[in-house]
């Protein structure tokens, strides 16, 4: 068991400071974008695309359509940037556009929209190869297997939250089409379930 390289480097105070810092930075970057700073836009794209990628992928849409979806979200932002009043709302706005476009593509491809609580196989085009890929990586393999025992809503929420550095749950709520007030309780329940499942795994020890 190699756990040491997964151990968190910082304690909670440092983390929460880092979170606030990130949020402020995003907000500042967006203000610079509004002022016409192209480099700020570049930075914003690098910073936010991984989370938008997860929002798109968490709908179950295939990888190449998700590329178009995320690209579409950024173009939409450029064309409507004057509509975003509070820079702090930026991430939520992007996440919403991403999700909406992903669901639209789903329908356009003649597939039924994924229902909120429906259990469908995430990453339908990758599941098999993922297990092969992780075969030599016991800890991640355990986590991958266990995550998919959770209800789909948990899988969606946790993967998106994980990429948002917990900075903006309101953004996640709209990005996942969940009521804002349910994010906290759902997060709590999903994490508790995940921890219970993990602790039942002989190969897992919390670092």
């Amino acid at each position, binding site marked *: 068991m190699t756990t040491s390289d997964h151990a968190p480097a910082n304690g909670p105070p440092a983390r929460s400071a880092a979170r606030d810092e990130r949020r402020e930075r995003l907000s500042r970057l967006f203000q610079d974008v509004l002022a016409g700073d192209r480099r700020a836009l570049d930075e914003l794209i690098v910073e936010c695309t991984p989370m938008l990628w997860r929002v798109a992928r968490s709908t179950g849409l295939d990888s190449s359509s998700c590329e178009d979806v995320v690209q579409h979200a950024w173009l939409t932002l450029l064309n409507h940037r004057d509509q975003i009043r509070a820079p702090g709302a930026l991430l939520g706005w992007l996440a919403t556009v991403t999700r909406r476009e992903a669901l639209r593509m789903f329908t356009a491809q003649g597939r039924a929209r994924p229902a909120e609580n429906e259990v469908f196989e995430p990453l339908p085009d990758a599941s098999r190869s993922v297990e092969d890929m992780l075969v030599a990586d016991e800890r991640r393999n355990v986590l991958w297997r266990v995550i998919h025992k959770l209800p789909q809503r948990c899988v969606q929420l946790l993967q998106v939250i994980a990429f948002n550095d917990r900075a903006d749950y309101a953004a996640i709520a709209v990005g996942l089409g969940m009521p804002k007030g349910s994010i906290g309780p759902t997060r709590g329940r999903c*994490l508790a379930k995940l921890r219970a499942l993990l602790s039942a795994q002989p190969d897992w020890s919390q670092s």
Partner: protein
Amino acid sequence: MNRSMDSAVPDMYGLIDDTDISILDEVADLYSRVDPVPDDLIERIRFTVALEEIDLEMMELVDETALHAGARGEDRSRILTFAAPLITLMIRVIGVTDDTVRVDGWLAPPAAHRIMVCIGESRLNCTADDEGRFVVEQMPAGRAQLIVGIADGPAEPGNLFATPAVVL
């Protein structure tokens, strides 16, 4: 591994403790391995976004040659040549079906330049090979504009060229 409320701290949406946070870190790490953001996606987004933001250098249509009619659909086939001081783009357009065409392109000087085809609101992206060649296997026939981004050049004026909108 009981949830220890002693170590849990409230954030905006409830209690979260160290273990939760480190699990979320591992979840992020896991997904970035099994389903990473595709290699060139961020580059493509930057390219696309830059186009909206800056003035492009226009290329000029310098030559248009109809290929002699032959096999079915080839009555719409022709070769178009566009030029700007630093770059030349030649494309061969062949009708595939009544509504779609195939485009074969060559860029000189040759390099792995980026290409974007704008058809109304939609965009097709591709990258030329080292010899400056690219293919769009199938795209809707009709008015389109091609945009070329110089290989490895930052998306800024001087590195981006646009053809006039032409009917392909």
